[in-house]
């Protein structure tokens, strides 16, 4: 009885974890777009999520755009073929990367055969997510002010073998910030039973 229960649980957790991670991306991206003023603040409305208030865009175009991206990310997550998601904030005119918000996605090793799986409580995961979102908000205090008009771009780092919907996703430039001009700050991480998300922000900083 024990093995069947175990396998069942695994199947559910992968799906559940994927949904959880995708949802986290949605709110993280929205938070960044709001906090970094990529879109005007009146495009956002407040939503209660993870036991706190999160600002989410209500611009339909942006909403749909994110929706489409996250849908594909979710598929990749399910197959474990995405390793990194990067939200790049670019200067609109020059298209130079100003900030890169990097989310590493790692697969957590499955617990060794036979051992009791130490399932993480949902509340615990949520509090970790909350901590990341709060950290994103607090980043604003030291990130350089971006004067210019900004656009964003979401890059997915996938495995070579990943299924890529033709015509929708294509290989792109990494939009990297030159090493000498960038500074990086590692942020908190959170993990589910299946995924571990580590966040980092790299920003252009010229003295």
């Amino acid at each position: 009885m024990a093995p069947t229960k175990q396998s069942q649980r695994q199947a559910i957790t992968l799906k559940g974890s994927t949904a959880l991670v995708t949802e986290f991306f949605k709110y993280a991206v929205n938070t960044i777009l709001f906090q970094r003023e990529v879109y005007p603040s009146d495009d956002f409305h407040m939503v209660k999520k993870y036991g706190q208030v999160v600002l989410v865009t209500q611009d339909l175009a942006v909403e749909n755009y994110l929706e489409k991206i996250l849908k594909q990310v979710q598929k990749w997550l399910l197959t474990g073929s995405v390793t990194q998601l990067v939200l790049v904030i670019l200067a609109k005119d020059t298209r130079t990367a100003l900030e890169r918000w990097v989310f590493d996605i790692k697969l957590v090793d499955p617990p060794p055969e036979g051992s009791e799986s130490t399932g993480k409580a949902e509340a615990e995961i949520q509090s970790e997510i909350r901590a990341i979102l709060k950290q994103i908000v607090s980043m604003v205090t030291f990130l350089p002010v971006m004067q210019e008009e900004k656009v964003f771009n979401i890059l997915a780092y996938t495995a070579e073998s990943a299924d890529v919907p033709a015509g929708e996703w294509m290989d792109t430039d990494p939009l990297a910030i030159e090493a000498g001009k960038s500074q990086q700050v590692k942020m908190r991480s959170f993990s589910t039973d299946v995924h571990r998300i580590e966040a980092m922000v790299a920003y252009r900083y010229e003295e």
Partner: protein
Amino acid sequence: MSGVKTPSRRRVRSEVKTPLTPSLSSAFNTVSIESPIKRATSTSIPLSDAFQRQASGGVIRKGGVESRIDVVTLDYVPPPKSAEIKRSRSTPAINLSDRDRFITSRDHTLEVSATLDQMSLNAPSGSPTHVARLAAAAGVPLNRRILGYHLQPPSASSDTTLALQREFARPLYANRPGSLASSTGSTTNKTRKISTNPERVLDAPVCWSSLNCVAVALESSTYIWKADTGAVVQMGEAPAGTYVSSVNFSNDGAFLGIGLGTGEVELWDVERGTKLRTMAGHQAQVAVLSWWQHLLSSGCGDGSVWHHDVRVPRHKVMELLGHSGEVCGLEWRKDGELIASGGNDNVVNIWDGRVGDTAPVGGDNVAQGNAKWTKRNHTAAVKALAWSPWQPNLLASGGGTNDATINIWNSTTGARLHTHTTPSQITSLHFSPHRKELLSTHGYPTNAIGVWSYPGLERVAEIRDAHDSRVLFSAISPGGDMVVTGAGDESLKFWRIWDIPTAEKKSKYKRARERGDAERSAVD
């Protein structure tokens, strides 16, 4: 599954321990001090000496980037033979030897992350250790495709700062276009690049005579359109180099006064189509004309109003000085007792219309009138003036863009009887001869014709967007039923606003009343 996991694990380890790029801030320096050592232990054990030399050489050649130097020194640290050998599995040692040499070919690239990304895109050609180190430093994974969504993110629906302001401003636009409309008229005009010239030419030049002729001035020509026959006659040309700025028929319709841009006032015989005389004297454009019997009054750009007696050689019989800006509205009361003038200085003056014998004999100076009332309530130029035909002491005045208000004055007491704010600038006003109603024409943004009841000033009707551009002038037909409007869109439109109360109707009404009386008496 496991194939995916292995690289990720490798990356986990390397990244956790070396979270740093070259210029990383102090917070992480503490971490960096110990982490490279650990990493060195983990990765260097399985490496051959040759590889280590090459790798370190490659890194050294990277030069300039300080963090690299850290790494280099650490690479030289002899690996302590510890129990951590297991970890080294993460570095695929097999691939090392045959790929090292490619490091040299990459030396020219100075930007670390750029190099790294190149390498990660062409993973087979780069040295895995070197790339791994770089990857660890820059946080970019190996052997990955970097994919971007094919669409660019939608641009912000509105500008950050302006969106809110527009939100606030929208109601203001609707009620008070005032502060932003420019003198060139509506925005459509701007895109079509209609110059301000035609606007000035069309500024006042239409008049509907009591003989049912409409005079329209276009540039330097004046045309008479005979409403009865539909025939169009060209009256004549203004002298070269100027334009007709105003036209006005005498009360009997037999004569036409034409004001010119240079300040002359011409007198024409409508029937014969000949010019009778030219009355010079004004130094600026004659923006408006108004007749009362033999007196032709002209409002001038310099703010003066002159009464010209068209019968005598010394035509200038009186001067009214009361405006500091151009006189753009001038209207005689029907009985000639009073004349009202409105100026670009936002002032409305009501003058005694009597000229009488006050004209001095000889000398250059002429009689000067004094304003009976001076009203400064308007906050914009007053172009629209109208005397009530059914209550002689009522004067209506309408202000321009910033004001957009209709004021109704009692010319006897000087009291302001009514005030009504409209959505947009008022370009002309007329009282209906037959109804207690007031007609106003408007400019940007409504470009409307409004009909208001009197005294309530409630809106009876409104023709929105009567013209494509602002309605600049209007004239009422002698019958009192039709109104002609001309606008900056260079078109004239005729509107049937009111009905002429016919004798038929009157008799019907009487009959009805009589019937009612009869019924009432029958009831009694």
